[in-house]
């Protein structure tokens, strides 16, 4: 855990990423608080806070006596939310930096197209 945001937020995001990329399929069990704590070498209470955030969001749900599971529809919900954040988190800094360097809109579009082709 190495960026400046609270660790519980980072834990929640790691699980979100696994759900988005399909590593954690819907209706499968997610690692327990203690497993997360041991793996990331963090306090179990912090790991629990990250999990609870996802439970509050309806991404995970609890099966009594078994553990936490990925809710049906979680993947779509997360993708939708990330799409909303895309403009502010990625497009805005990209455009800001382009302006700083004197790269115009047309040139930027061309760059994006070239990149798409190279993938």
């Amino acid at each position: 855990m190495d960026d400046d945001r609270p660790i519980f937020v980072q834990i929640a995001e790691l699980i979100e990423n696994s759900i988005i990329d399909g590593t954690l399929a819907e209706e499968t069990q997610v690692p327990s608080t203690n497993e997360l704590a041991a793996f990331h070498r963090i306090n179990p209470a912090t790991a629990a806070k990250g999990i609870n955030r996802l439970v509050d969001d309806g991404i995970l749900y609890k099966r009594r006596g078994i553990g936490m599971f990925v809710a049906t529809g979680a993947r779509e919900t997360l993708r939708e939310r990330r799409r909303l954040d895309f403009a502010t988190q990625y497009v805005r800094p990209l455009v800001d930096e382009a302006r700083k360097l004197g790269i115009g809109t047309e040139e930027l579009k061309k760059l994006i197209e070239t990149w798409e082709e190279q993938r």
Partner: protein
Amino acid sequence: MTVVAASGLTKRYRDVTALDDVSFTLEENAIYGLLGRNGAGKTTLMQLITGQTGATSGSLELFGEHPYENERALMKVVFIKESQKYPTAYKVKHVLSLARHLFPNWDEDFAQSLVDDFNLPRKRDVRKLSRGMTSALGVTIGLAARAPLTFFDEPYLGLDAVARQLFYDRLLADYAEHPRTVVLSTHLIDEVADLIEQVLLLDRGKLVLDADTDELRGEVMDATGPAEAIDEFATGRQVLHREQLGGVVRVTLRGSFDNAERMRAKKLSIDLQPVSLQQAVVRLTMERKTDR
């Protein structure tokens, strides 16, 4: 449940004030980091809580009782300190068997597995142990005692990086299975930063910080940028440190940094960088020095 409650706690030795009007609580099932420079009052505080000395003034409760010479409350506490002294002619196995009788929650299997992990020679005279082995024995007792309130006061002397990691891993795993209140007093702040939930920072006898570690993480930042922009951005935040190189200023700020504020910093051409817990503690301690 509150495990320790201190209010206005003060301890004076002749003309030295070791602890000055300190108030805080330690709650059940949490890991605390007790931080501060040498002579800040950490050991005095732990000695007061563990009933080894009495306070000059103020109140202190341990499991709701007065700790001084209170055997019932002290049964629930284990205090592992730097360079612990053991009785003469005792071997490692004798110390362990003494601890087994002393601590009601002692787990013998766990103790034996720790002895193996740390490669402790069971038949060696404790006074012939190396520094690192003496520390490892202390750590073993502190963990296997599973006391509701566990203090580790700089338990590392002579422990290498591998042995320290072993200690952190065993502590975390056992804490997950058997939650309790743990207080880690250490100078190796970055090593324990992710383990501790709450930071207590002492500076010259005063408690200068009592904060949630995870919240503190996002609250202290280095901001670098043009002097004017920095001055504007610093308004309403606590400036812990300031350095200047030509027109570029770097400040360490304490305050809230939400997404809108980060965006604002970017617009002002300010680079925001997170500060490690260790760096934050250094800045908070140094800042008090310039106060005087």
